[in-house]
């Protein structure tokens, strides 16, 4: 006699029972009411997209995390969305050009990120996010996103959290100054991402002494440019290039506005941070809570993404991982 196969779910997805669903709903309503107070309006995007369309807005890393399958009729490859931002970019660029800017949108959706081989690293994530599309980049828009994220987290009842702010635009400009092949730049970027200074030093050594003087000093300092506001000042003293100074000025203005809104206690700065989606072009930020090992929110400025969908406007946005916030709150939510 054969035993019937157990009734199971694929890796990475799960059911949520009433008790947990209620905790999630509380966090959702705290975040959504904050978003509405800032004048953001909800949009709903589809579960599936054509890979070709989605790919316009995805970097190499995200492309490997897409669960794909074929549309039976057409033979075209479809995907379950791994990220909502490219969908919003498509939506705004193709259907919302007649809306006045700045355009403030939010969403409350699930995404699915597939790990190679479908192992335990596959994950369905409940995301609540906001995007602000405008004609130009401004410290005002960037700081508003950070302050709104802080307000929303406070409203959920979360106490010990930090929003860590960096600037990929700054790091990209530092790398652009180096006269070494792209392969070498990628290695340098990876070492910076890990704050691995000894690794960085050996890369600089093997690259034949092309990177010297101020550039070398700045690269090796990047791994230590984390902490509070004073790191911007420190970075200023290492950066003679006007393009670098411009990035740091922008960042400083953004931080100053956040400070004036009374949120300085909730932020940290890390100029050596290069993680996040490939589409980020400027200020990036992530939220961390003390008892959760991974970021509870991440976001940043992406000024070239909408252009890829044919609409040359700029944008900044972020998304919360709702279940991580529930975990961070532990038993004492709201």
């Amino acid at each position: 006699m054969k035993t019937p196969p157990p009734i199971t779910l694929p890796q990475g997805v799960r059911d949520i029972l009433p008790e947990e669903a209620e905790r999630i709903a509380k966090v959702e309503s705290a975040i959504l009411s904050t978003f509405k107070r800032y004048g953001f309006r909800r949009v709903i995007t589809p579960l599936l997209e054509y890979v070709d369309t989605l790919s316009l807005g995805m970097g190499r890393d995200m492309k490997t995390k897409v669960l794909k399958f074929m549309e039976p009729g057409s033979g075209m490859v479809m995907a379950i969305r791994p990220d909502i931002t490219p969908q919003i970019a498509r939506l705004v660029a193709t259907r919302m050009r007649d809306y006045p800017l700045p355009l403030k949108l939010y969403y409350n959706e699930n995404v699915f990120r597939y790990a190679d081989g479908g192992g335990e690293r596959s994950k369905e994530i409940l995301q609540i996010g906001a995007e602000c599309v405008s004609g130009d980049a401004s410290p005002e828009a960037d700081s508003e996103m950070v302050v709104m994220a802080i307000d929303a987290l406070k409203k959920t009842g979360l106490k010990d959290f930090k929003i860590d702010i960096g600037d990929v635009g700054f790091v990209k400009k530092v790398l652009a100054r180096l006269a070494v092949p792209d392969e070498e730049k990628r290695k340098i970027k990876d070492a910076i991402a890990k704050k691995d200074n000894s690794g960085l030093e050996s890369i600089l050594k093997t690259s034949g002494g092309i990177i010297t003087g101020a550039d070398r000093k700045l690269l090796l300092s990047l791994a230590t440019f984390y902490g509070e506001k004073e790191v911007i000042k420190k970075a200023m003293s290492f950066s003679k290039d006007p393009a670098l100074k411009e990035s740091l000025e922008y960042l400083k203005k953004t931080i100053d506005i956040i400070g004036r809104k009374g949120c300085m206690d909730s932020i940290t700065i890390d100029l050596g941070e290069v993680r996040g989606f490939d589409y980020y072009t400027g200020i990036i930020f992530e939220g961390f809570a003390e008892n959760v090992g991974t970021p509870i929110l991440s976001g940043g400025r992406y000024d070239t993404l909408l252009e890829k969908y044919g609409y040359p406007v700029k944008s900044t946005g972020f998304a919360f991982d709702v279940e991580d916030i529930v975990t961070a709150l532990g038993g004492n939510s709201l």
Partner: protein
Amino acid sequence: MKKIKPITIALPKGRTLRETVELFNRAGIITGDILSDERRLIFENRKESVRFMLVRAQDVPTYVEYGAADAGVAGGDVLTEQAKDLYEPMDLKIGRCRMVVAEPKGLKAGDNPRHWTRIRVATKYPNITLRHFLKKGIQVEIIKLYGSIELAPLLGLCERIVDLVQTGETLKKNGLLEVETIMEISSRLVCNRASLKTKPKRIKELVDRLSKYISG
């Protein structure tokens, strides 16, 4: 004054533990002889508000990635093999060794690694091994073992191995010769991302204090 935030550090049992503990001892982060009781896996330095846990070397990156430990000490071999998303702010320059490809003496004579096309290799490090040979255009059948790798060629399980060597004594005793070095290895301080962001002062202090006692 705000209360200082406690931190937890995961230390690897095995090959490098004694050296690691000595370094932390010199830096004043560990006091007393914590290795006298072999069965104790968690201990605390109250004065410094630091807690230590002893775990398997291969498990250190996992504890740190999930934030169960704020920081840890892990070998470059384990870190490269597992490729977890961690900060690696410092090379501690202890536990030094090399990861090499080795084969029996008899095979080495007249063998040219550049002409290999398909080989069978036993190792504890399947990911590193696969990447190393694929990069050279060599197809490789990997046999994952958990220890005593150097026995595998003797027993005819495979022709070649990828393993760590410190002095080369073990290879020699088993009639094996080094063919090439894949990477140089040492122990590193690793750190959880959220810990570095939420406790930046403590992590900076840890790095600063250890860096004063790193030699070479």
